[in-house]
């Protein structure tokens, strides 16, 4: 084989990932040479990289293209999910600046690990075979374990990192075992190859493989019964890192789940549908009931995220194009609600101390009326009260479930969302009807930007839903 025979794969579709990869190497060198004083510069650089990558993603045509030996796919679905991932990561940098400076853990490695994590997540959203799926997942997870323990002098933070690492390694093992069974029984790792090899029938080996892969995926999604790590990791990690875990990696995990089940196993829906239905019901129920007794806002958001993953999975359980559209709409709105809620949570600061319990919100409406209004909007939206965005998110997934004859699933979903409304509305009650505690410090500008944008999406979604729903529809269409 001479040099002329080697064909360079088309790198254009992977342009956003290449921008991030090369950019992060430059940032590492800059940080390593400048030392600890470079944190500010590396943060700004990482933010610029993420925004540039976002523009690169948005400028892709959305037509279905595979490259890099068929292991990397770019279409409308990957476009939307990557945009969400990049927005979540960029928002995390904005949210983290002030907190990290005050906690004296303002080191240049954080934005670098965040960008590396983002590359992994984008690979997950573009995975077209089991190997690239696993490598993207591992890149994302490994960086996530480190930033969970980033506050290394804090016992809770290191415990969170260690817990996440041990359980994450276990779940990766399960995913790999399942993937090896799928490979063993189909003879290929590529998703189109698996579809062709299965030919609409799933033997016992494939069923077992799907079960193990689903277990690994459910862990990454923090769906019941693989959710045990979530409250502890969310509580122990530094709050901006918690905001990150609740936003961008959820987008990536959901993108990966949809790619895997719709991309590799579309003709054997009956096998995985029952798993997804069970996981969705259990997540919705646990997310609603377990959050009721929580006093810590971070734990409350952890249970809320478990519940929300359950609602999004209702759309996947439908297995139809409308179902996937529902999932994408849900993830868009969930991202806005989560980032908004965490922006408020991060601004509860007085005299250098962070306040993280429900009681610290007492009378927020009198001390900080705008903050209280925004958080109330997020909570009403999470509870699914019209005309806020959260209502439409739930509407699309439940409508798809009913169309797919999963009426019982939709009914259970509505019932659990009523139960869940209790604890969301309790926060509103605490803010508006309890006696105020002392005022908090003014919000740093980064938090203001994130909260402002998130509030606009959540409050005004019902006026012009077309762009977001249209993008989600195009994303779902590209998978079928």
């Amino acid at each position, binding site marked *: 084989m001479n040099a002329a025979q080697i*064909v360079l794969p088309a790198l254009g579709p992977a342009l956003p990932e290449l921008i991030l990869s090369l950019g992060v190497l430059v940032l590492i060198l800059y940080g390593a040479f400048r030392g600890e004083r470079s944190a500010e510069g590396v943060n700004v650089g990482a933010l610029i990289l993420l925004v540039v990558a976002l523009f690169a993603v948005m400028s892709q045509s959305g037509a279905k293209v595979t490259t890099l030996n068929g292991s990397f796919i770019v279409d409308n679905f990957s476009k939307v999910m990557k945009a969400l991932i990049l927005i979540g990561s960029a928002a995390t940098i904005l949210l983290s600046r002030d907190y990290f400076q005050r906690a004296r853990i303002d080191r240049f490695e954080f934005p670098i*690990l965040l960008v590396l994590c983002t590359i992994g997540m984008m690979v997950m959203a573009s995975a077209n075979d089991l190997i*690239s799926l696993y490598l993207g997942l591992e*890149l994302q997870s490994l960086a996530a374990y*480190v930033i969970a323990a980033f506050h290394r002098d804090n016992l809770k933070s290191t415990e969170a990192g260690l817990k996440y690492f041990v359980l994450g390694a276990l779940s990766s093992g399960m995913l790999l075992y399942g993937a090896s069974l799928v490979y063993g029984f189909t003879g290929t790792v590529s998703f189109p190859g698996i579809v062709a090899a299965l030919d609409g029938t799933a033997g016992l080996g494939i069923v*077992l493989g799907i079960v193990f892969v689903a277990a690994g995926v459910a862990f990454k999604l923090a769906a019941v019964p693989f959710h045990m790590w979530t409250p502890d990791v969310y509580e122990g990690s530094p709050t901006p890192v918690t905001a990150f875990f609740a936003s961008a990696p959820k987008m990536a995990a959901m993108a990966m789940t949809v790619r895997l089940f719709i991309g590799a196993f579309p003709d054997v829906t009956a096998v995985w549908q029952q798993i997804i239905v069970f996981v969705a019901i259990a997540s919705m129920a646990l997310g609603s009931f377990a959050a009721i007794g929580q006093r810590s806002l971070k734990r409350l958001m952890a249970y809320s995220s478990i519940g929300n993953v359950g609602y999004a999975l209702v759309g996947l359980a439908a297995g139809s194009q409308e179902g996937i559209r529902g999932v994408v709409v849900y993830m868009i709105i969930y991202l806005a609600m989560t980032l908004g809620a965490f922006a408020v949570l991060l601004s509860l600061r007085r005299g250098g101390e962070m306040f993280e319990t429900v009681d610290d919100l007492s009378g927020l409406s009198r001390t900080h009326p705008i903050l209280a209004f925004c958080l109330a909007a997020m909570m009403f939206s999470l509870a699914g009260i019209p005309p806020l965005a959260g209502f439409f998110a739930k509407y699309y997934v439940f409508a798809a479930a009913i169309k797919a004859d999963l009426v019982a699933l939709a009914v259970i979903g509505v019932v659990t969302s009523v139960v869940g409304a209790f604890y969301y509305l309790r926060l509103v009650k605490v803010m508006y009807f309890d006696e105020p505690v002392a005022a908090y410090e003014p919000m740093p500008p980064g938090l203001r930007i994130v909260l402002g944008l998130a509030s606009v999406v959540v409050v005004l979604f019902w006026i012009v839903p077309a762009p977001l729903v249209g993008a989600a529809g195009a994303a779902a269409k590209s998978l079928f």
Partner: protein
Amino acid sequence: MSAAAAFFYLFAGVTIASGFMVIASRNPVASVLFLILAFVNAAGLFVMMGAEFLAMILVVVYVGAVAVLFLFVVMMLDVDFAQLRQGFQQYLPIGALIGAVFLIELLLVVGSWTIDPGLVQTPLNPVPPAEAVTNTQALGRVLYTDYVFFFQLAGLILLVAMIGAIVLTLRDRPGVKRQNISVQNARTQGMAVETRKVPSRQGVEV
């Protein structure tokens, strides 16, 4: 029995026996040594299949680096294995139950396993033919062309592991004396040496 078959059974038998000894041995240092023995025999099996590159890599990476690292860890850290085994009796029933479930699942899976008849021929007639290119060349050709994406991603994962290890463990200790070469080079005789006259019977104050 041909020589090849004899060697196959020798290597395979020793691999399995030493693999068993890894978990059965009471002394952890002996366990690691048995692990090395298993690796070396597996390398022998690879050589017999014509995969000489994999065999050498197994010896270099696993025996040379990983197993020796294990040995260091086992010898340096005073792990009390008796204490680790304390909960053994308590967790035995649930562990046995899960093990049994997995065993049944595996048997069911193996029962439905059919091997593609074409697959058996593949090791005998490799693509590209073994006479034309060496193992290393054949691997290099696909590693940097078809699988360049996976190769680069694996590189990024290792980069994350390196940064993570530094972030979580590197600490600035105050009061540590470090070598500063430029300061050392800038020292002159006047800074380092002082010449004094020592008066007889009086000495000097230092």
